[in-house]
């Protein structure tokens, strides 16, 4: 199964990944190898076979909508890369620039 640069760029756009020129050179070949490998699944007769999403058979497990855990804001701030004095997450100013 052939895989080319254009297809790779399309997937990268979908996945929000940027690929370097070096990666764009090497990747199509790697992809073809992997795709040839997974295409063998086409040989299997799956007529009438139900797909499995996960093996527990559980569905729609619900609980009462009651808050049982709260994490104090101070704890949450520790996992943020940059915060201001009010404890807000500081992100890059990107909305003022023109988008693609």
């Amino acid at each position, binding site marked *: 199964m052939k895989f080319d640069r254009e297809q790779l760029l399309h997937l990268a756009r979908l996945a929000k*990944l940027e690929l370097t020129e070096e990666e764009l050179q090497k990747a199509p070949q790697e992809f073809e190898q992997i795709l040839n490998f997974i295409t063998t*699944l086409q040989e299997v007769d799956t007529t009438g076979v139900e797909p*499995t999403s*996960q093996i527990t058979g*559980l569905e729609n497990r619900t609980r009462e909508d009651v808050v049982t855990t709260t*994490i104090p804001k101070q704890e949450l701030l520790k996992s943020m*890369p940059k915060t201001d004095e009010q404890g807000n997450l500081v992100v890059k100013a990107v909305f003022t620039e023109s*988008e693609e």
Partner: protein
Amino acid sequence: MLKELRTQLDAKKVSAVELTEQYLKRIEETNSMLNSFITVTTEEARAQAKVAQKQIDQGVQDPLTGIPYAAKDLFCTKGIRTTAASRILEHYIPPYSATAITDSKEAVLLGKTNLDEFAMGASTEYSAFGVTKNPFDLERVAGGSSGGSAAAVAAGQAAFAFGTDTGGSIRQPASFCNVVGFKPTYGRISRYGVVAMSSSLDTVGFFTKTVEDSAYLLNTLAGSNTFDTTTPEVKVEDYVAATERELKGLKIGIPTEYMQAEGLDPQIKVAYEELIAKLEKEGAKIQEVSLPHTNYALATYYVLCPAEVSSNMGRYDGIRYGIPSEHAHTLDEVFTKTRDEQIGREVKRRVLIGTFCLSAGSYDAFYKKAQQVRTLVTRDFTNAFQSVDVLLTPTSPFLPFKIGERSADPVAMYLADLFTVPVSLAGVPAVSLPCSVVNGLPVGMQLIAAQFQESILLRAAAGLERITSAPAPKLVV
């Protein structure tokens, strides 16, 4: 070993503080050689040991109080850096701990162990923090993705260690590092707080020195949990009691497709055959079985896993997680550049393959098809367990390989999971235990049981452990 540690701690023959210091010293002496730990939590461990000792003094200890352990750096640990061996989480400090960690209560966390980035790999070579070396041959890999945890237990750096197994990531490194690697049924232990890789396959498990130790841990950690809706309400049995039962009378299935697998190293095959003969002598009933869809399991996994990965990795975008790239000038670039700069090649590869399998035009032929083949693979196991209690197979088709030998070829690396992946697709429990030594290198064998039949599995594993008398390989650290 864990039962003995519990007895010694409770009888005050050793204090929790002394025990922790012993392990911390061992880590200090050996970590630079093995690179098994990404973060060693020396001060936190010392503090936790003191708390544990207080509990023991007051007589309110739990089964794991004061026992030093390590956790794969995929388990969120409150206030302690959790990286998933990736640059994008290099500075991430979780505000909460995984259920497995909180359920370990006052066991003493020594540190977070190395892994392949986001658990994708079979050698720990894809870690952003360097490879973990095999404690029996420093030029070889410790296996993956939970290489750090396996090496830590093998080298005596921790009494037990947590890992995750999605396609073999506990069992294969256990085989490479001569320790017991236990993967329960999918859903037996809560995944809450474990960085998700492939949500329908990820399973929490552990590395221990003995089968009894795994049973001891399972008694405490198994159970349904409201924070993980994929944990069914299934009774938690006395798994330690199961390990005391006889091997005699158990029906052990030998799957033809594994015995005849093309990729199987001939020396491992010989060890496998010798073991089967030994088991028969001990009174186990050996029977050949067939798992007809075995040869499609790996391809099925490498469609489903990347597909789920591509979804789970979406959150690492420089806004929800990760520090945004310096070079981003638009919102889109915040996503693309951050991900490009801070995520490694194997992860990117899987995200792209997964995106492909899920994209319009490919979904039916790849993702849906793989889900259907998954049903067939699961049925193979259900059918086999109609006539046998457990299955016995080698864990890895090859011996621990040299660092660099497979990392350049993705498909060569994927083949490492040949014998472990079918089990993952079916979600059944399995364990790898040390059984042989070939060319001075550890060789593990895998036992598999039906869903939620951990008692039978542990009974068989303990029996197997009792009869394998191969000389142990030599640690080089």
